[in-house]
């Protein structure tokens, strides 16, 4: 009795003794982490990236680039090296509307109508203030989001002026968060939407647009700065262009001049018009005579420096300043040369910036197809071109910069700052690109510019990612020619022999110290002397990742370096514009396959995408890529150009599958359930035809509110179509109000054992039905709202397991993973009676039959057998300590190693827990001897959360959307790649690295022991000999 108890205790202890744990020296070697901020929102000045000079405690200044991004992050990058200085991740239901910055503070408004105000320390990103301006459901959202929200700093105090919902202005104490006063317009935003604020000591000016009968009119309101009482409010007689009323007017002040603030707008009748603002709004409208302007651009210098850019009809652009000089205070500071519209130049991007002393600069950036490099020769070169204008001296410097449009797409935004350089000035500028890249350049002497750094922020929007194994390094025989003469060979061998001493040294060293390839060592950083090759343990693979910004990357899994990247070409839609959304990614050729030429080929992937052209047409496009180099495997697009795809379906895709028989074929279904195959070869067609009768696919059908999961088979009817057509065979009929949220296919890996031997020598056979899928659903319309999870056989629609789960606050966030016969799901349990509250994780295992030793051979049974529903589910619920955003299991080469559960928590950790903890057969009492033999430990409701099991250790991995696992060459080790806002990669050995010598293995001890024993033999040998001799006598 005593021994089993002791053993149970030991087993309980060993359960948490970390089979996997990270040494500090291994951190950063076995794993890597890419901290990203997301792709900047360049649509409006209030969210676009801009330079900011912040003063540190020691008096030095540092330059940051602050931006709001499409990943809903407010982030700051160091201008020097492009590293993330700080970032604040906003919740998904709290989108950033606008941010403003002052010397040491950044203020951001987020949520519907700007419901929440936050201020941050500009240098460290520390949150200083968080204040609810109004309840989110009371906020009014306008299109674009920046309309109707604004923040202004009151100079000389900590106070902020906050404009929310387009109709409410509040004065907030920036230190305490107290609302000093609040003013709301009478119409509550139904007629007038304010969008701009200017503070002057005598009045606060609010400028907005008012809907009038025919068009949009400017509306101005003045408030008292002391208590927010209304001074005056009236329409300014104007007509704004109906297509873009919000961006066609500006509010100008210039503190260095005596002029009152002015409103400038593009009038549909009178062209560029101005209105001088006074507290009583008794100004007059002035029209701009002479040149006709078609556009006014706010470069971020209007409200403080009175500067803007106006574009004339012919495209000529001018920098205009409100000041003391010029006609009625308006003065054209400079006309940009080469700005007349030309087919050789792309439309220009304008940016406003400052130097250290706060002097304003305006930069104009465009793409130039042809320019002269040399006086005598005209090269047909292309490149970026930047003109920087110093306003104070009205000098403009033009420079060429090497922007690579084939790897970064087109420029979408530019921000810059300037610094004096001799009697001239230098410019630093950051280009945002359509593929989500950020590139920092700085100008040097002459016409040169240099690239400082590049960030691939598109990786914050990875849609699909897969591991691809890479081949071993080829051992290349030197010489090799048959007709080599003896003398030549001798010379060659002598030359080669010069490496022998080094080899001998290395051999001796390796023998003595045992420095073999080690699992904790990083795979060699890209070998310069040859192509990419595998390391000893297969830890080095290529992660092919496609983003929603039309770019596909090959990432080295051992160090996170981007090996190659290609921009996806739009095909015919390039003329109208469009977007490519990745759908699925398949490895169509692995290292084990033989290429067409009979030799082992390089691995290849097929990326299935949907192209949404701006004229609403949707096509399905395939990209066939060499995973090692990023080359087009169809050999249609040159290396340095866009990667052009293959339009396989002229219409949207419904589902895609991967058929792996004798060929590897991508099977696509169009809207009419017609089958398309890729590659379109006779072999793959024959292969598909052979397999067609036994194929089952699950397809989500039906519109909103009537979604169903239908099992399909395919048939060929030559009279109707030359293609195979899918037809429904079964349906997973859900209740009418249930909405499918996700379909989680079973993770198929090698199954090492089909059963589980119990302590009493009986066996539970695993239920390994290949057609199992897990489906999570939501029924928001039911009372109370609920969620559900199903495990179903899609071939005939039978439900194997079903659980109804509570919806937390009406929303379903059920995460689930299904591997072999094991289902784990996680949800927030909120009992309406208040009996329970908290995260729950449920582990379910499916075994064949009703009892032990009941075997139905589920893995190779026909789906139409009645036996398929003879299954027993064992389940256990656990209390989880974390919210989870992604969940998966490890996968290993042969499936022998125990599977760990890997999950990403909402507080930015990637964590693993062993399967033994999740075992649904853990007994609720002290385990018996038989159960101890099975290594079962007593059930404890709370899942442990040891910090050593946090794979991401000190890194904060934010907003993980998915975790991908892949086997390494070592059976013990699984590779783990998590993507979301950040990228994180590590490897994990769930059962310890049993197939390699442990890092802890003490070679010194072994050597010392052997030496000691040898010494003992040397000492004792003569003694024994002497003794024997004596005995003989």
């Amino acid at each position, binding site marked *: 009795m005593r021994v089993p108890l002791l053993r149970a205790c030991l087993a309980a202890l060993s359960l948490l003794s970390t089979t996997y744990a990270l040494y500090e020296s291994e951190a950063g070697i076995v794993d890597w982490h890419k901290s990203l901020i997301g792709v900047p929102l360049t649509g409006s000045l209030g969210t676009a990236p801009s330079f900011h000079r912040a003063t540190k405690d020691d008096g030095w200044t540092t330059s940051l680039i602050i931006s709001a991004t499409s990943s809903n992050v407010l982030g700051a990058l160091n201008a020097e090296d492009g590293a993330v200085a700080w970032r604040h991740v906003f919740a998904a239901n709290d989108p950033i509307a606008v941010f403003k910055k002052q010397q040491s503070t950044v203020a951001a408004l987020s949520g519907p109508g700007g419901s929440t105000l936050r201020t941050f320390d500009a240098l460290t990103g520390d949150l200083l203030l968080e204040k609810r301006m109004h309840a989110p459901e009371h906020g009014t959202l306008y299109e674009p989001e920046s309309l109707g929200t604004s923040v202004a700093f009151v100079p000389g105090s900590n106070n902020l002026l906050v404009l929310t919902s387009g109709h409410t202005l509040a004065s907030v104490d920036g230190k305490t968060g107290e609302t000093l006063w609040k003013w709301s317009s009478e119409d509550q935003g139904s007629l007038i939407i304010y969008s701009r604020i200017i503070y002057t000591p005598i009045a606060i000016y609010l400028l907005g647009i008012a809907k009038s009968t025919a068009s949009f009119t400017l509306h101005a309101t003045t408030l008292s700065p002391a208590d927010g009482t209304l001074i005056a409010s009236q329409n300014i007689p104007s007509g704004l262009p109906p297509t873009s009323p919000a961006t066609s007017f500006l509010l100008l002040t210039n503190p260095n001049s005596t002029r009152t603030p002015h409103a400038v707008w593009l009038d549909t009748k009178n062209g560029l018009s101005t209105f001088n603002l006074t507290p009583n709004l008794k100004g007059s409208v002035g029209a701009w005579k002479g040149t006709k302007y078609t556009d006014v651009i706010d470069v971020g210098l209007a409200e403080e420096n009175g500067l803007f850019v106006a574009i004339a009809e012919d495209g000529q652009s001018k920098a205009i300043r409100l000041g003391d000089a010029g006609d009625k205070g308006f003065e054209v500071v400079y006309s940009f040369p080469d700005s007349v519209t030309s087919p050789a130049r792309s439309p220009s991007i304008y940016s406003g910036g400052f130097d250290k002393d706060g002097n304003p600069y305006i930069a104009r950036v465009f793409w130039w197809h042809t320019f002269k490099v040399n006086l005598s020769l005209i090269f047909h070169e292309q490149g970026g071109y930047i003109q920087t204008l110093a306003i104070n001296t009205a000098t403009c410097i033009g420079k060429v910069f090497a922007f690579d449009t084939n790897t970064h797409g087109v420029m979408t935004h530019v921000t810059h700052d300037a610094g004096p350089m001799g009697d001239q000035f230098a410019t630093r500028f950051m280009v945002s690109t359509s593929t989500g890249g950020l590139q920092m350049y700085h100008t040097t002497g002459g016409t040169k510019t240099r690239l400082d750094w590049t960030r691939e922020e598109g990786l914050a929007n990875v849609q699909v990612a897969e591991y691809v194994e890479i081949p071993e390094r080829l051992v290349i025989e030197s010489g090799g020619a048959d007709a080599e003469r003896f003398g030549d060979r001798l010379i060659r061998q002598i030359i080669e022999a010069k490496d022998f001493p080094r080899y001998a040294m290395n051999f001796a060293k390796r023998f003595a110290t045992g420095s073999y390839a080690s699992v904790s060592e990083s795979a060699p950083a890209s070998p310069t002397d040859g192509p990419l090759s595998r390391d000893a343990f297969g830890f080095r693979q290529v992660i092919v990742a496609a983003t929603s910004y039309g770019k596909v990357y090959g990432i080295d899994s051992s160090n996170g370096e981007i090996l190659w990247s290609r921009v996806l070409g739009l095909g015919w839609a390039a003329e109208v514009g469009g977007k490519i959304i990745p759908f699925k990614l398949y490895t169509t050729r692995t290292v084990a396959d033989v290429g067409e030429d009979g030799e082992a080929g390089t691995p290849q992937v097929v990326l299935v995408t949907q192209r949404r052209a701006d004229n609403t047409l949707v096509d399905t496009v395939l990209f066939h890529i060499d995973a090692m180099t990023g080359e087009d495997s169809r050999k249609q697009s040159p290396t340095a150009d866009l990667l052009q795809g293959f339009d396989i379906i002229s219409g949207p895709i419904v589902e895609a599958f991967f058929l792996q028989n004798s060929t590897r074929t991508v099977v696509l279904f169009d809207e009419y359930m017609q089958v398309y195959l890729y590659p379109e070869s006779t072999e793959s067609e024959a292969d598909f035809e052979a397999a067609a009768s036994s194929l089952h696919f699950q397809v989500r059908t039906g519109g909103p509110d009537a979604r169903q999961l239908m099992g399909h088979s395919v048939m060929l009817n030559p009279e109707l179509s030359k293609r195979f057509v899918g037809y429904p065979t079964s349906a997973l009929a859900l209740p009418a109000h249930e909405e499918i949220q996700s379909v989680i296919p079973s993770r198929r890996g090698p199954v090492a054992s089909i059963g589980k031997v119990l302590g009493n020598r009986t066996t539970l056979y695993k239920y390994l039905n290949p057609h199992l899928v897990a489906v999570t659903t939501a029924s928001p319309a039911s009372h109370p709202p609920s969620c559900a999870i199903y495990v179903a056989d899609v071939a005939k629609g039978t439900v194997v397991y079903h659980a109804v789960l509570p919806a937390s606050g009406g929303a379903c966030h059920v995460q689930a993973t299904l591997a072999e016969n094991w289902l784990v799901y996680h949800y927030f349990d909120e009992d309406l*009676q208040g009996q329970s509250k908290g995260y729950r994780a449920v582990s379910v295992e499916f075994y064949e039959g009703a009892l032990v030793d009941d075997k139905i051979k589920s893995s190779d049974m026909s789906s139409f057998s009645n036996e398929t529903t003879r299954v027993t589910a064992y389940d256990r619920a656990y209390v989880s300590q974390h919210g989870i955003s992604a969940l998966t299991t490890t996968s290993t080469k042969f499936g022998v190693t125990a599977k760990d559960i890997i999950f990403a928590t909402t*507080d930015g950790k990637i964590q693993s827990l062993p399967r033994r903890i999740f075992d649904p057969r853990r007994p609720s009492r002290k385990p018996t001897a038989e159960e101890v033999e099975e290594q079962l430990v007593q059930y404890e409701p709370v899942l442990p959360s040891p910090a050593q099991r946090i794979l991401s250790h000190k890194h904060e991995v934010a907003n993980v959307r998915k975790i991908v696992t892949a086997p390494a060459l070592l059976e013990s080790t699984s590779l783990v790649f998590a993507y979301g806002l950040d990228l994180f990669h590590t490897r994990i050995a769930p059962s310890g690295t049993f197939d390699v010598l442990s890092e802890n293995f003490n070679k010194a001890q072994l050597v010392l022991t052997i030496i000691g024993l040898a010494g003992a033999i040397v000492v004792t040998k003569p003694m024994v000999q002497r003794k024997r001799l004596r005995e003989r006598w």
Partner: protein
Amino acid sequence: MFGSRLLLVLSSVCSLALALDIRGSILWNDVCPSFSNLSSVRVVLNDGKLSSGVTREGGFLIPDVPSGSYLLSALSHDYTFDSLRIDVPSDSESPSVHPHILGTPFSPASSIALAYPVVLTPRGKNAYYVAREGFNVMAMLSNPMMLIMGFTAIMMFAMPYIMKNLDPQMLEEMNNSQKKMMGVQSAMQSGDIKSGLAALVGAEDEPKSAGARNQPASSQVKNRGGKNKKR
């Protein structure tokens, strides 16, 4: 405070549902002395639909929380915090705070009532790494196996000398007991456990009863022998 409450009352008239702000702060202690250690932290109710960031001063405010009971937890990357049960009543003015231990029933609330505004105490810092065991000669030598090995080695050399210096009487005694033990062992090995045990018990009993009585005598003899030698 009063002003904001008044405002809340006003707004609640519009929305017809009383909602309270939940205020609180983080108590800086030895585990986490300042905000710069904490990096980003968010205080959430239930699964995070209602939440608040923590400002540099350590304060937080979750606005407009409707009546009901909530699980309050602090999401921090590097530190662990206790979870609390917050009850926002529909009539009273301030929420009540109770400790909640995960894995225990959520209702009824613990009888311990905590002060409001909420005070969150950092309980521990996550230790992500394990220390690598380095090579240590002392640790290797203090290993029991090594100690036994060392002892045998020493005995191997020392034994002949000890044997030489031993009293012939003691030697005989030792030989006798050794023989007895051998007998027991061989009996055990041959499967005759009973007789072996009996022999063992007998062997144990014998010296015990004899020893109790004879020990002083034998020591006397030994002493005397020693004295004799000296003379």
